[in-house]
């Protein structure tokens, strides 16, 4: 059935798989003190930052790769990777966009992220990270006028050391686990955001991560601080070229919300997933954690995970402030041989803390999709509440879906509600839509988008339509 439409689809599959032909400058392969010193030097870092990296590296020597994820991971040779790659002669980030290599601007244009001021999406400021460096940041000055700091973290380390020093590693300790510690030792670039007291950031802030160089890992680090009574909505997107090798992406993202502050963090993850036989693709091992430090603070994670050969991430919230709220909205789609093990941790420490988890897992092809979550109520978390809903949708009969929700309860006045469903797209639904003129792919994408709707509508409006398309494209070729 429908051969024509299926062929049409395969051709437009993963349209971000191109490589930008640009000369790059790399620090030689290998993970050692010398490489870390070189990275720090490239970034012109102060002594304290280098010391911090080196302390992480010291810890790393006694740590090993975690093995508990429900994923089959080829062993990674950490000595056989490049840890730093930047466009050649990229000494310092260009002061204006006119000075940025046209090839780079063209790359982002092709990815649908125009950086030139006259073309940029109104209301969205972008930090563009290419391999290990940030190549451009838009609307920086405009944001500066209201006191919002939005810049590459390497710049923040130099210009706002007091903020970075205070908060880096305060949510994800240097010693957290292997990949987080690795990131702390070798991180290259990522974004830094500070929203001052009482400011509602008037624009969406976003970072677009692009891996271009081969045999190179990307280790970005993002730190967002929302001061008392402030609000910010931040979005990250990611893509990479199609290659037969697996590439490692190990990021750390830390969020801190002070009293009455709110951070909304959205991810549209579209790293190269590998081909239909499971060859190549990104290993996406990411640590994301938010600290609701102040009372009445709120952190909300929304993620659309469609790419990567293996996704392994648990954006979490530590609800320390009384009356604080944590949210996790997730759509994870796996097709072909992709493996996703993703979920969240909600750690309730303060009184009257609330959390809400909505997870939608969609598996197709021969893929495996696991929700893994932990909801934990500590003794002092009086009247804490959690609601969890995990829905899985299976497309075809060769894929796997697992739900592993864990709870720990040391508080006797708290409540946990959990709902879980597993369903298949029914033939009746497909036939109904087809009877009205939709071909099988269109019908399937309509039904799947309906299944994810609750999560998709949490995305900033500018990106919701794009995300819907991505959901459809990710399932191409899965119709039987």
């Amino acid at each position: 059935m429908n051969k024509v439409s299926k062929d049409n689809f395969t051709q437009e599959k993963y349209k971000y798989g191109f490589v930008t032909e640009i000369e790059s400058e790399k620090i030689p392969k290998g993970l050692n003190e010398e490489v870390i010193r070189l990275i720090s030097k490239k970034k012109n870092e102060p002594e304290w930052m280098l010391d911090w990296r080196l302390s992480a590296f010291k810890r790393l020597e006694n740590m090993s790769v975690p093995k508990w994820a429900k994923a089959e991971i080829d062993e990674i040779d950490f000595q056989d990777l490049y840890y730093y790659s930047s466009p050649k002669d990229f000494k310092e980030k260009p002061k204006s966009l006119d000075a940025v290599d046209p090839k780079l601007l063209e790359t982002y244009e092709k990815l649908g992220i125009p950086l030139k001021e006259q073309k940029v999406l109104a209301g969205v400021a972008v930090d563009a990270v290419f391999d290990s460096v940030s190549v451009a940041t838009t609307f920086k000055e405009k944001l500066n006028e209201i006191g919002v700091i939005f810049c590459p973290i390497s710049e923040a380390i130099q210009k706002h050391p007091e903020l970075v020093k205070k908060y880096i590693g305060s949510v994800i300790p240097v010693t957290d686990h292997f990949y987080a510690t690795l990131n702390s030792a070798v991180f290259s670039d990522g974004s830094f955001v500070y929203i001052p007291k009482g400011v509602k950031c008037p624009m969406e802030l976003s970072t677009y991560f692009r891996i271009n160089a081969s045999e190179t890992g990307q280790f970005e680090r993002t730190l967002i601080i929302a001061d008392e009574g402030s609000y910010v909505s931040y979005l990250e997107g990611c893509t990479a070229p199609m290659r037969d090798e697996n590439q490692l992406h190990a990021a750390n993202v830390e969020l801190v919300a002070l009293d009455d502050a709110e951070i909304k963090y959205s991810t549209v993850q579209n790293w190269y997933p590998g081909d239909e036989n499971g060859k190549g693709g990104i290993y996406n091992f990411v640590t994301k954690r938010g600290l609701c430090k102040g009372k009445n603070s709120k952190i909300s994670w929304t993620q659309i995970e469609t790419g990567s050969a293996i996704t392994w991430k648990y954006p979490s919230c530590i609800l320390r402030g009384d009356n604080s709220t944590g949210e996790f909205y997730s759509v994870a789609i796996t097709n072909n041989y992709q493996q996703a093990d993703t979920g969240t941790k909600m750690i309730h420490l303060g009184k009257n803390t609330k959390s809400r988890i909505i997870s939608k897992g969609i598996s197709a092809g021969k893929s495996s999709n696991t929700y893994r979550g932990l909801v934990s109520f500590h003794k002092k978390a009086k009247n804490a509440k959690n609601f969890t809903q995990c829905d899985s949708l299976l497309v075809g009969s060769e894929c796997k879906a697992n739900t592993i929700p864990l709870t720990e309860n040391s508080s006797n006045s708290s409540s946990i509600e959990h709902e879980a469903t597993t369903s298949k797209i029914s033939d009746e639904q497909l036939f109904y839509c087809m009877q009205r003129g939709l071909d099988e792919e269109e019908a399937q994408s309509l039904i799947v988008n309906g299944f994810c709707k609750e999560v998709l509508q949490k995305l900033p409006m500018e990106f919701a339509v794009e995300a819907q398309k991505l959901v459809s494209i990710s399932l191409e070729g899965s119709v039987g």
Partner: protein
Amino acid sequence: MLEIKNLNVTVEEKQILKNLNLNIGKGEVHAIMGPNGSGKSTIAHTLAGKPSYNVESGEVNLNGKDLLSKDPYERSLNGLFLAFQYPIELPGVTNASYLKQIVNAHRKSRKETPIDAGEFLKILKEKSKLLDIPMDMHSRFVNAGFSGGEKKKNEVLQMDLLNPSLIIMDETDSGLDVDALKTTAEAINKLRNDERSFIIITHYLRLLEYIEPDYVHVFQNGSVIETGDKTLASRIDQEGYS
């Protein structure tokens, strides 16, 4: 416009339609009546191309073109509309966006540009009014939590939006109260014209009292055992099938 010749259909290896022959001319309304299990719904699903209905032999032409080799969506794009006895729920998909998408699928097949949002809303308002459908129904999810009447009206609305040349109604009267039946039937009557043909599958006379058929066929054991005009429907209503 529709010719069915010696059609044999099995479902799960059981023969349901046996050497069925039926001709339907342009603008004609044909009613198919028959007891449960006589194959009435099978003919509807077979014509629409439902996957589990296997055509063993026979031929069906719609507007001079072979129908059976086409995928279900192509049959729809070629003007065949099946109003479901039990319309299917699509959770998370709002009715308005669904309706717009099916309208656009038909426009695309005619090489027309997608409909403008304002224009679509205007048409939707107009056609919903005809069926007594409140506009807020369109912000709900397709058929999810709809009453029996709302579901059937939503089917007729889609019929109206897609402008088909052959409409097959599978027990559209079931689950409708008297008022809803009347509104629905009136809306269907407005869709009648010289170019459009109908197959109305029903157990009862009551729908046929509102929509007058040109022909009535009685089905038994997978084929037509008797054909007549609308008086046949009244006779069956009084005397039963035996």
